[in-house]
């Protein structure tokens, strides 16, 4: 008789959880930092790492919650070392234990490496717990042997996780709703290509990335009032008009701007990385 457990995913057992809980304990400050703004390990990368691990472990609850989070944040291509990070995260998930961070050390600063370790550990624990819910459901529906002793253990894990899981699921639902309600990024209206200055052209191409975040997009593009902001990068100036579902860019600073944001080109462009707080220090905001 085949005595193998027909449930295909890894669930939370003490021997599987312990290495990750120990890793979490070692890297807790990194985990906290990964959720703070302005860090070298940005939120979009964090969510990619989480989804890479989740894909290996097959946890549908985590996939739903963090998929919602990723949709909310939007796409961003300004991230170095993506593939190395994702390869490391997947390898950890497949091994079922934290691995040597040597592949990351050469390409990421130590605080970012700590954040990656913590993120992998955190989502591993979450995946195991999420899979345990499904494992328990499978027992209750007789898709796998009931095995009362193990079922009791799984029920205890699920009960312990409920206080955290419910807010997470609620947050996922809220993020998903925000993404769906956010207006799309409209095609920017710009002067004829031969007239539009370099800053206008750059901003027009950056718009999808700058406005990738659903909340920001709702606030800016969905604003009932047209927001008029001047930008000055080096000597070159532009005016952004956003709101009521439209985005328009003009050469020069219009007299009706609310504020003028000044700075070098690079920090203005790097705002698109999502590192708003980090880059804001390099910008000046003044009244026109």
């Amino acid at each position, binding site marked *: 008789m085949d005595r193998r457990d027909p449930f295909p995913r890894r669930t939370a057992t003490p021997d599987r959880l312990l290495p990750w809980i120990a890793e979490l304990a070692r890297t807790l400050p990194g985990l906290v930092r990964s959720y703070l703004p302005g860090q070298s390990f940005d939120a979009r990368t964090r969510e990619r790492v989480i989804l890479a691990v989740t894909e290996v472990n097959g946890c549908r609850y985590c996939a739903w919650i963090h998929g919602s989070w990723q949709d909310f944040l939007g796409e961003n291509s*300004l991230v170095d070392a993506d593939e190395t990070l994702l390869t490391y995260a997947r390898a950890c998930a497949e091994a079922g234990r934290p691995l040597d961070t040597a592949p990351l050390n050469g390409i990421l600063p130590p605080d970012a490496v700590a954040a990656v370790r913590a993120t992998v550990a955190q989502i591993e624990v979450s995946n195991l717990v999420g899979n345990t819910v499904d494992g328990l459901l499978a027992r209750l529906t007789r898709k796998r042997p009931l095995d009362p002793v193990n079922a009791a253990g799984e029920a205890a894990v699920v009960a312990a996780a409920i206080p955290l899981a419910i807010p997470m699921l609620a947050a996922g639902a809220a993020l998903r709703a925000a993404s769906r309600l956010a207006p799309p990024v409209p095609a920017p209206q710009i002067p004829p290509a031969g007239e539009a200055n370099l800053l206008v052209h750059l901003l027009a191409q950056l718009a999808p990335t700058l406005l990738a975040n659903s909340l920001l997009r709702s606030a800016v593009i969905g604003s009932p009032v047209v927001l008029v902001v001047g930008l000055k990068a080096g000597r070159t100036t532009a005016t952004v008009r956003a709101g009521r579902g439209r985005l328009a860019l003009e050469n020069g600073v219009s007299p009706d701007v609310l504020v003028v944001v000044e700075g070098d*080109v690079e920090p203005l462009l790097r705002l698109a990385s999502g590192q708003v707080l980090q880059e804001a220090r390099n910008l000046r905001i003044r009244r026109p």
Partner: protein
Amino acid sequence: MELKDALAAVVGSEHVDPAGDQHLQDVTENPPGHAEFVVRPHTTDEVRALVVLAHERGIPVTPVVAGYNVAGIAIPRAGGIVLDLTRMNAIVELDREAMYVVVEPGVTFAQLKTFLDGEAPELVYTYPFAPPFTSVMMNALLDGLNNLSLPHGAMGKWVNGLEVVLADGEVVRTGSGGVVDRWFARAPVPDFSGLFVSTQGTTGIVTRAALQLQPKPPYRRRWLAFAEDLGAAYGVMRALARTGSFDDCGLMTWPAAKQLFGATRDLQRSEDEPFAYLMIDITGASQGELDARVDLGKRLLTEHGIEQSFDADEVARLVPALVKMAELPTTLDFLLDYPGGGLTWVGSYGPGDRWIDGARRGMDLLVEYGFPPFLVSRPMDGGHFYVLRFVANFDKGDPAEVERVRTLMGKLADAVLDHEYVPYKASADAAHRILERAHPGFVRLLERVRDAFDPDRRMNPGRW
């Protein structure tokens, strides 16, 4: 035997066709040419046999690969056959120790880059602001400028040696490879390679070229910086070149950026826009070396009043239009897909102390003839000389515009010569203007070389 049959006997009938538009014209204002057949040889032996056949029958021979020299150099002017060398696309030899590669004429920049990335990732060739399907060898033989020309000079200097089929069918070799079986240098034997550089195929058909490679530093940064006027642009190019610490400093004036973002006609520079864009490449064998060069570069930019610079690779990931600038070779669609399809330029090499005046004069001429002041430049060979290249897109379907651009190119050739700049990849018209001003001794020597190599003037006729 009919000519077509005789050609087919050498290369196979599937590689002989009547000459069509693709081989009789190019993107420039130069008028279409004429030829009887296009022949596509695959080996040096086939080239030799075709050249012997042409020699016996007194037929002109015009060699071509991609046909994007932007000077009409590969348009057949006197009939005969076009020798399309694209099938000769073997990378014959890689010498990682002596750092060179031997290529046939049809090897493209994309092909060589992929090959080196796979087979010798510690080495690098140098790439032009040109499409990936263009010929590595032709770029070198025409003395083009690439993204390592700041430290290492025009591309003719990268040639270590050549295998050439002469007009009478004799196959010769130049450089160290003419003596031993390694093509490590042009020295120390008599330097005959120059007989085939910038001579535009008039002295023979080059079938193999040994080209230098360079070590590929593992650390790299690329900046895009803005210059507000010609003085600042020249000042910083000169300063960067003279340190010997930078890989490239390519300059393009503001119309290039407009075209990069899709503009075609009615280009206008707003008052607060930069005058020129500088692409600055910095590399280092270690992070420390790179950091030191970055610090030096920042200081030099500041000293020359250039306050704005940013990481070009990083921005290119966010701004799709800039991807074309981030990695060479590049598609150049913003130049090649211009409405009307016309692209031409006068490019020239000359001394730094005439650069500002020459640049100003050329840009004034472009504007006077109704074109935006599109200038491309870079310091060359450590700053020994500089580039002035004036670019014009135009509508090939508009005869008046074609005539206007033809007149303009002539005036630009004269203007650069007035400023002691000499056109490279010279069109027939530019070559004529060069020879009009050349020292009589230079003209006589050129004639004697051609008399020796091609007394009937059948090799790419109409040049020089």
